[in-house]
């Protein structure tokens, strides 16, 4: 349902994403792994149509994101990095706004808002101004916004970043649950999350895909059988000199 072909993005001389291709099918949960600055967020921003690619193509449910942005964006639910929100609004009015922007009205709107409030456990803060929410609630409010139109494709940029262990566990469970009938891609740099929630994982380093497979396959590639060792062997720390070329 997500098809990425030869996607590249340059910012000036810097190549943030370098010729990557992959697909995500319905029922798949793809973990997008990589060190900070590897190009994960840039890739997701291109997937969701926020920034145009320098080269390559993205299609979502058959709609090209560049040629048919509105149709493609209708199919996507997106949780941007750091969960940005209109902080002056209350949780309820924000969710109503998100629902209306997705074309939901009347009874349909009411039902969708009720559904995501339940799914993301927001009932206790509905009337509260977003400004006053704790980080966990802010994150869940933004996640609720991404789920409001029950999208076929979910793009989640670091959905568990900054959450406590309980909240992380809950978000992972939610991702697994929804993964059954959606195509989900989520980025993380927490390796245990891959085993906990993904059906497949891609490791990306400095804009390039360096590994792509199921968690079991990836673990088998490492001598010690641990994902962490594979990750460290394939990616470079951001302090590494550019001359030290990829190990993979």
């Amino acid at each position, binding site marked *: 349902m997500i098809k990425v072909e030869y996607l590249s993005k340059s910012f000036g001389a810097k190549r943030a994403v370098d010729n990557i291709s992959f697909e995500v099918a319905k029922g798949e949960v793809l973990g997008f792994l990589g060190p900070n600055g590897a190009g994960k967020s840039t890739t997701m*921003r291109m997937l969701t149509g926020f920034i145009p690619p320098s080269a390559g193509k993205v299609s979502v449910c058959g709609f090209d994101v560049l040629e048919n942005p*509105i149709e493609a*964006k209708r199919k996507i639910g997106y949780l*941007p990095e750091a969960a*940005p*929100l209109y902080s002056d609004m209350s949780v309820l009015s924000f969710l109503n*706004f998100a629902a209306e922007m997705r074309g939901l009205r009347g009874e349909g709107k009411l039902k969708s808002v009720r559904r995501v409030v339940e799914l993301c456990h927001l009932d206790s803060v509905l009337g509260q101004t977003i400004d006053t929410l704790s980080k966990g609630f802010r994150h869940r409010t933004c996640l609720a916004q991404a789920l409001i139109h029950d999208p076929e494709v979910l793009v989640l940029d670091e959905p568990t970043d900054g959450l406590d262990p309980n909240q992380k566990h809950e978000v992972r469970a939610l991702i697994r649950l929804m993964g059954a009938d959606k195509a989900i891609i989520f980025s993380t740099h927490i390796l245990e999350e891959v085993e906990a929630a993904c059906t497949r994982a891609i490791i990306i380093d400095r804009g390039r895909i360096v590994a792509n497979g199921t968690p079991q396959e990836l673990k088998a590639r490492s001598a010690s059988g641990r994902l962490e060792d594979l990750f460290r062997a394939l990616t470079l720390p951001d302090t590494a000199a550019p001359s030290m070329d990829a190990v993979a």
Partner: protein
Amino acid sequence: MIGWAVIRIIARRELAAYFESPVAYVFLVIFLLLSGFFTFTFGGFFERGEASLAAFFNWLPWLFLFLVPAAGMRLWSEERRMGTIELLLTMPITTSQAILGKFLASWAFLVIALLLTFPIVITANWLGDPDNGVIASGYIGAALLAGAYLAVSCMTSALTRNQVIAFILAVVLCLLLILVGFSPITDLLARWASPWLVETVTRFSVLTHYDGLQKGVLDSRDLLYFLSVMAFSLFATGVVIRNHRAG
């Protein structure tokens, strides 16, 4: 398809955002205090010996010069600073719809502020017998002037995530739009430039077109001027936002 339904939803959220924060109330109070102050002191509302709102309208281009950029500076820089621009523009809408929705909401807010000056109209009608047609045309001019300033502020707001920079840039650009038609400046220009040049330059000023409307003359050229300034600035806003996203 323009998609007015979406534009309306964006505009409603934006307008609510003014009133959910103290911005709206501070703005309204300051605007009403200052406009009243200018009208009844420097404007010489009573000393003029005529029943008109000239004392009020004459000061408006200068008062709006600071207040309109203050109302418009947050439109896009706030979205950029908070990262909500990413949320907004990944919803199934076009950039133009977002720009138009936000602009119309702010403009509506400024029109509300203008309408709240109605006590001055009542005062003039109570004390004398003003030409209410001229007053209506004056208000239309004032609303168009606010829209032009606002569109410029919208553009500068899209340029930066810093609201102070957006504000200062907007004030400078709007000041430029005033000064090219401000008589002390145009008189200087007239000393050495040919008359047609002076006239061409002054045609670009908001004052030239604003003054026409203050006299009660609804000239389509004046309307066209204000609408062009708005259309151009909003178009430029779109270019700025698209360029920013392209990186």
